[in-house]
């Protein structure tokens, strides 16, 4: 399954937040109560009602200001840990659309708080959110209803600058790699984030940490490949039981 991917070129993002609002518009998510906290970033974080959030990060480089914008959203992992975790917990709220690769949380399935926490914890990018009132989990849907009809996801369609892109995965990877080689000339630290593992491929011009704590999945040294594989076995066993 090649499926679909996003390519998010932060070097072209002006943080107009068209994507943030278009996402709310399409998904009929309400505006939540927020406060000015000394930042342009609002709401403060993703939530059950906010699937897409432009994160703002200001810093200084060689005495000159830089302002980095990071339109954060679900990465739609090729192998989604939220999904595996849910399975291991027996939570049937998450699936993946085989045609597109969209990872989907069904907000109508009730999830216990502790399970929701575990699922969220399993996400290297801290994406899925749980709502106390409904006990459901929600996040970016890749606008599955739109893309199934050949429309672009709402956030991509509304983007004025070409920061947000969407299409067949191979095309997006080509676009990302091509743009990376251009941008690198000016910004040697430019990189794609976890592009081999995810369907939401970010291009950043500086170290990902400077954008946002969870911009990139962290590679912790000391956990060996074998150890990781061992961890895998557990959920797979659970899956087998379910399948059987």
């Amino acid at each position, binding site marked *: 399954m090649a499926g679909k991917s996003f390519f998010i070129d932060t070097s072209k993002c002006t943080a107009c937040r068209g994507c943030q609002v278009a996402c709310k518009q399409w998904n009929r998510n309400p505006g939540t109560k927020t406060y000015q906290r000394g930042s342009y970033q609002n709401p403060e974080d993703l939530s059950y009602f906010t699937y897409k959030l432009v994160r703002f990060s200001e810093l200084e480089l060689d005495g000159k200001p830089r302002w*980095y914008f990071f339109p954060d959203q679900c990465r739609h992992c090729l192998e989604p840990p939220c999904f595996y975790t849910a399975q291991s917990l027996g939570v049937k709220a998450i699936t993946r659309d085989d045609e597109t690769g969209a990872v989907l949380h069904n907000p109508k399935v009730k999830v216990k708080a502790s399970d929701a926490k575990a699922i969220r914890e399993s996400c290297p990018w801290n994406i899925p959110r749980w709502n106390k009132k409904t006990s459901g989990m929600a996040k970016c849907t890749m606008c599955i209803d739109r893309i199934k009809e050949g429309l672009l996801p709402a956030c991509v369609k509304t983007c*004025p600058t070409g920061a947000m892109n969407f299409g067949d995965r191979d095309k997006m990877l080509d676009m990302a790699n091509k743009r990376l080689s251009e941008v690198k000339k000016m910004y040697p630290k430019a990189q794609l984030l*976890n592009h081999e593992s995810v369907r939401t491929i970010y291009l950043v011009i500086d170290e990902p940490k400077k954008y946002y704590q969870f911009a990139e999945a962290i590679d912790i040294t000391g956990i060996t490949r074998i150890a990781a594989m061992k961890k895998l076995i557990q959920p797979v066993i659970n899956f087998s039981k379910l399948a059987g």
Partner: protein
Amino acid sequence: MKVITRRDFLKISGVAAVGLTISQLGFDLTAVQVYAAELRIKGAKETPSICCFCAVGCGIIVATDKQGKVINTEGDPDHPISEGALCAKGAASYQIAVNENRLRKVRYRAPYSDKWKEVSWDWALDKIAANIKKSRDKSFMEKNADGKVVNRTNGIASVGSAALDNEECWLYQKMLRAFGLVYIEHQARICHSPSVPALAESFGRGAMTNHFIDIRNADVILNMGGDVAEKHPVTFKWIQAARNRGATFIHADPRFTRTSSKADIYARLRPGTDIAFLGGMIKYILDNNLYDEFYVKNYTNASFIVGPKYSFDDGLFSGYDPNKRAYDKSTWALEKDEAGIPKRDMTLQNERCVFQLLKKHYSRYTMEKVTSITGTPQEDLEKVYKTYGSTGKPDKAGTELYAMGWTQHTVGTQNIRTMSIIQTLLGNMGIAGGGVNALRGESNVQGSTDQALLFHILPGYLPAPRAQWATLADYNKTTPSTKDPRSVNWWKNRPKYAASLLKSFYGEKATKENDFGYSWLPKLDPTQDASWLNLFDEMYKGTFTGFFAWGMNPACSSANAGKIRQALARLDWMVNVNVFDSETGSFWKGPGINPKNIKTEVFQLPCAAFMEKQGSITNSGRWMQWRWKAANPPGEARPDGEIIYDLFRKVEGLYKKDKGAFPYPILNLKWDYETNGRFDIHKVAKEINGYFLEDVPEHPVNKNAYKKSTLVPSFVFLLDDGRTSCGNWIYSASYTEAGNMAARRKKTDPTGLGLYPEWAWAWPVNRRIIYNRASVDRDGKPRNPDRAILKWDAANKKWIGDVPDGPAPPMGTQGVYPFIMKPDGVASLFGPGLADGPFPEHYEPLECPIEKNIMSSQRINPAIKIFKGGPDVFATCDPRYPFVCSTYRLAEHWQTGVLTRWLPWLIEAQPQIFCEMDKELAELKGIENGDRVVVETVRGKVEAVAMVTLRLKPLVIAGKTVHTIGLPYHYGWLYPKDGGDSANLLTPTVGDANTMMPETKVFMANVYKKKGR
């Protein structure tokens, strides 16, 4: 239980090793079904519209269900400017249509009452009409103190509105002028008023010269005096398109903003020092011979000789009268030969030629001086000068994008003039990828300006009548003239436009014998200035009994808003029309006000939002785009056009019934825009275009025959003898026998340069880049063949490409000059028509941090009006107010937030007013990020949340550290309750010397931590 943690993910992402796909594992697929069951907009009706916020003019598709309810709004993918994109505001427009806080009922607030009462339309309009008549009859002046006929109503004023459609604007000004109002103003005054005289003085017309898509054709884009990513976000589509081609993007701004974050070059400067910054660039261009010599010699007044009376000394031009704070501009006149044609020296060597005077004037703007005034490091200045100066070659194009950052200053007009000089020197005018581009901030502020909702003009930039022009013949004597046969001087046609306008006002009642009803138009006193600040000053003094705030919120949008709020209390009645409630409509219950003390009777009329009516709006690039109706307005809300239409009928009825002051303009007004008994906006659109009123068997222009009651093909066919009508000559050709041009949606692009001549319509005569004759050489060959917007086909004797700026053949050695709207036919490096000097000169803002202007002994612009007394107080170099303060807009809100604060998705993104400040200042004042602070000026104070940022930096000005702070002005006390009040409570009542544009971009303030959180 094993749970995968965030940290482990990378290690396991090779999970495919287990060889199972997720769907094989047997799960619940309902999630897919939940989301993909049915596309919400499947089968919905889709109606194209245009966004109601800034003037980029992005396309929106409004989807409605079978019941006619709006179910979705998103970008129009076919729209050539926005290509489906929308910024946060545009993307939130669904919440304008579907919003529980929309005004649904007519509301009335009786004098001294503390609450609204819901009333019927009929009741309200009857009562408003009676109020209008009473105020009009009481204050009507037939003759002024000098005994001159003025026929005006002194006791009613109006502001509004750039939020109306073109047709509504035109109808509204027609009604107001029939009532006799001269105090007619709106957003344009406080938005781009300086652009009009600055650009008109330089090039002939007062509008954005190019258009949004054309930005992609530039090699260097300078965004100075503006902040595109915040204020005109979708513009960035075309900036990015240019950058993808290799263009350089420069942002020069006091604040490092979202725009700066994407700039190739960023230069910081102190607010209010743009002329110094750009003056240095003029010097750099001249010193390094970067100018376009052919262009400068042939297409500008560089070679013209200035008369011997002209001088400039220590900040003052010749002819200054300190008592009047005004210049005798005759001392700046050009020298003319016996035939009355300006003298020229094509070698540019004569010491009194414009080129040499320009050189001399700007030789004073050395790098050292510029740096000490602006605070911009010299290396940054040089980088900007060098990069921008590189566009002086014929195959290079540089464009400038600006907005309020240049206009809202006491030197607003001259800020824009300085850039006009640079663009003229570099040959960047009239070309693809060039221009001085005034980015307009309201969706139809270009249109509302064109339709003349301003005191000083009639539709199409005809001057407003004044007492000294008693007859139409007197009025026509002011028509610009030239003795030079090579100058087209298009304005020579003005009498045709004036006569046709009067016919559109008074129809058959306008006859040759009665001067086409000219005497019925209200007349200003000879030097009367009825602009915004003066209007509210008069209101404050109690001059008016009645006031319309139509689609406007002056209680938050005006400089010195505290004064405005007091002024509103001195009215007998006010009519406020809007989509949501506002601080203006509800001023009587504002902070610190006891409704029991407020006599003002208030009528609040609910109006339709943009997708609930049809009509046209004109974007910043002069594209007139039609919007179709997608849904009905909520409750009893009605389109503005219908409200205006019915209101006039009511007033007319009263004057028919009872006698009243000078009823003729009302009784003789042509008011017949109905089809089958219902108001028909198309009839107004056609009236604006113009009709043949009689059969014209052999038209003087082309000898063709035209039938009575047919629409004129364009303003070329207008006549001065009463046989044609035209509501606005620059819009003539917009609605012809071929149909409604603004409604066109065909996407052909013959030049490949993004002109899209069959998408909508652009004034004038569908020309997409004005002054385009300056893009070709004397033989009509494109000077930049790679980006040719125009070329002369010599074999067939016609122009190919854009609609040429005048049909005449190329200039050759004997033909016409390219700038057809200027009497001299060329662009003006020397501009003797402005109030404060023919060359821009740096002066400090009225409130500034330094005692002495580094350039001269004149600290402030010598030609500005100083308001005195009452709430008009100022503090300069005052230790109580040590910081330079500025106000601005954010990408997520629009204007006073009168629409956007009510949209939950936008108020979520920018919930409360904040004050940005640099780290050093915060440390100095013991303020931490997120603290509540008070920002205070000598006029008022506003509470805000501190935003301590690396993006602001102190500057060293004349050896002194100067901190700049700033606040967005989108908030108001009414809603949301914790959003904060208007930043305009801080700003001063002082205007630009030419247009009275308030100086809201620079003033002096203090900021301190609020005690006891």
